């Protein structure tokens, strides 16, 4: 990538923040052009509407199926209105497998690894952004280079390491390998670099220790980036599958996605239970997404352009 990428990135961070204020600009544009005829506008809405329908229909289908009794599930063409509504499927699904345990594991793993990742990445990013040290350049390049190695290459040796450490089927195996992300370090470093130098001088004059300064001043000021890193970590951890599949072998240590695949082989074609389980397994993430959708979307846009 050319050096201009930096200025492009700067421009887009602004553009990403735009949706709050484009109204005036938009109006100006449509006045200047006045090109969107009602017909064109209608076509745009139609196309976007069909798109949204396609994106949402699997979720609707999941919820509809999850509330049907089994004899309604195997009806073709499917009915969209039926009676009675079978709320009990959710209870049945929950009881068929140790979902309580799966949820507990998923929450522990996701929360702990998110917290630890923010800590390790913030510390590393702080060193890269604000300190001058021996081997800085080489080390940073090495980290970025490691992004290119696909996880599949690491799978086998990491599994062997865990066997050696006797970590198979423990929380250690599910958490520790995932508490550092090079992306996290990279994004936080970018954020720390943008803070004004005067701030750091002021910190020094006030005799604020570096460590306390990082937690009390630098991190709170970089909140958007920290939130983005944490959100993506949480989701990634909640949804992670292949690794958990490999390093766990008892139901006690399974997280939601792996538990769900075992559940699915157990219940087979009882699709109403399967859909109920799918629905409650994605519920926490959906809630999180709706609460923080702005940060998500801005975060994605930011990763794309830096």
């Amino acid at each position, binding site marked *: *990538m050319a*050096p201009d*990428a930096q200025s492009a990135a700067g*421009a887009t961070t602004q553009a990403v923040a735009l949706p709050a204020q484009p109204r005036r*600009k938009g109006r100006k544009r449509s006045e*200047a*052009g006045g090109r969107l005829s009602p017909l064109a506008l209608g076509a745009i809405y139609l*196309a*976007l509407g069909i*798109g949204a329908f396609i*994106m*949402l229909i*699997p*979720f609707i*289908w*999941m919820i509809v*199926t999850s509330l049907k009794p089994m004899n309604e599930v*195997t*009806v073709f*063409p*499917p009915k969209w209105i039926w009676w009675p509504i079978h709320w009990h499927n959710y209870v049945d699904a929950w009881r068929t497998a140790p979902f309580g345990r799966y949820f507990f594991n998923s929450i522990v793993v996701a929360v702990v690894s998110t917290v630890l990742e923010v800590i390790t990445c913030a510390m*590393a990013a*702080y*060193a890269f952004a604000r*300190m*001058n*040290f*021996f081997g800085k*350049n080489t*080390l*940073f*390049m090495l980290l970025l280079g*490691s*992004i290119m190695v*696909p996880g599949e*290459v*690491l799978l*086998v*040796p990491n599994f*062997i390491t865990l066997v050696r450490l006797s970590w198979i089927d423990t929380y250690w195996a599910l958490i520790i*390998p995932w508490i*550092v992300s090079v992306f996290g370090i*990279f994004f936080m470093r970018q954020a720390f670099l943008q803070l004004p130098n005067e701030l750091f001088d002021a910190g020094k004059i006030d005799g604020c220790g*570096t460590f306390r300064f990082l937690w009390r001043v630098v991190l709170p000021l970089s909140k958007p980036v920290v939130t983005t890193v944490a959100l993506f970590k949480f989701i990634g951890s909640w949804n992670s*599958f292949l690794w958990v599949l*490999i390093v766990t072998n008892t139901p006690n240590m399974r997280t939601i*996605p792996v538990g*769900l695949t075992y559940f*699915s082989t157990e219940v087979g074609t009882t699709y109403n239970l399967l*859909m109920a389980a*799918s629905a409650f397994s*994605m519920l926490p993430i959906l809630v999180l*997404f709706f609460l923080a*959708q702005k940060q998500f*979307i801005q975060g*994605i*846009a930011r*990763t*794309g*352009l830096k």
Partner: protein
Amino acid sequence: MAFIDPTLTRDLGRRKKGNHAAGRPPVSPERRKALRRKFWRETGVAYLYLSPALLVLGVFSFWPVIKSLELSLFKWDMISPVKTFVGLKNYSDLLFKDEEFWLGIKNTLYYVLGTVPLGIVIALGLALLLNAKIRLRSFFRVSYFLPHVTSVVAISMVWRWIFHSDYGLMNYILGWFHIRSLPWLSEPALAMPAVIIMSIWRHLGYDVIIFLAGLQSIDKEYYEAAKVDGASGWQMFRYITWPLLSPTTFFITIISTIGAFKVFQEIYVLFNTGSGPLRSAYTIVFFIYDKAFRDWEMGYASAGAWLLFLLIFALTLIQFRVSRNRIHYS
């Protein structure tokens, strides 16, 4: 997710230069000594801050790279204490003897060619529509992005049900257009298309958001100038939007291609831990997983993983080459 950080070399370079310029002329030996001491003290502190990250990355990212290269030269089943050195035999067996490996490559290429170009075209189209002055933009954005945050496992289960040959939603909707029901997941010729449909659906939102950010970073003045000159909508797209969007398009192409080469979970769940009828959706990562964790051939699996890496790396390099003259940084 840039692989090369353009800012890094720039500001490191700048800082170094700055130090030289400011620090060189009238430095007394004592001062230089003090500076040097300060530098080493700071180095100590810095490594203290880096130590947790470096420890974990060292054990779980750097060491395994070396380890897996070494493993790929051995025949080893994990259990027996003896590793037999076989040199490059694992690689040559994979490339010249193993039909499963080639089946994996073939299916993976099919998947990549099926998802990447089509996904990008649809995403760009949607992003262009979303960039028009419309209401409900955030509703559309959220609904397009929704599939991307859900877990592959849960959503693949939903799709398994959608593709059900007797009671599935897909065949019901095809019925609206008088298309007969298709056995999506049990017919070898349809298995990969089913995976492709689901994957495009799942990844679309991500691409749309990035395209949208790219579109919004294009300066509106270009369009105003073009309008004054009487340019048509198509001309504006062809001569303004497309060239100025090319870095974004390139980025999405690279990221989606790399991601597509690693497809595994979707298939594993969609076909209930299998790889489709007659292995019609058997991909390279599926192959690696099979060899390592079902057949316990650790060396062979490592060699397969390295070949996958080399393949991705070579294709990424080619993409960089080919696009070098076609990307315009505004």
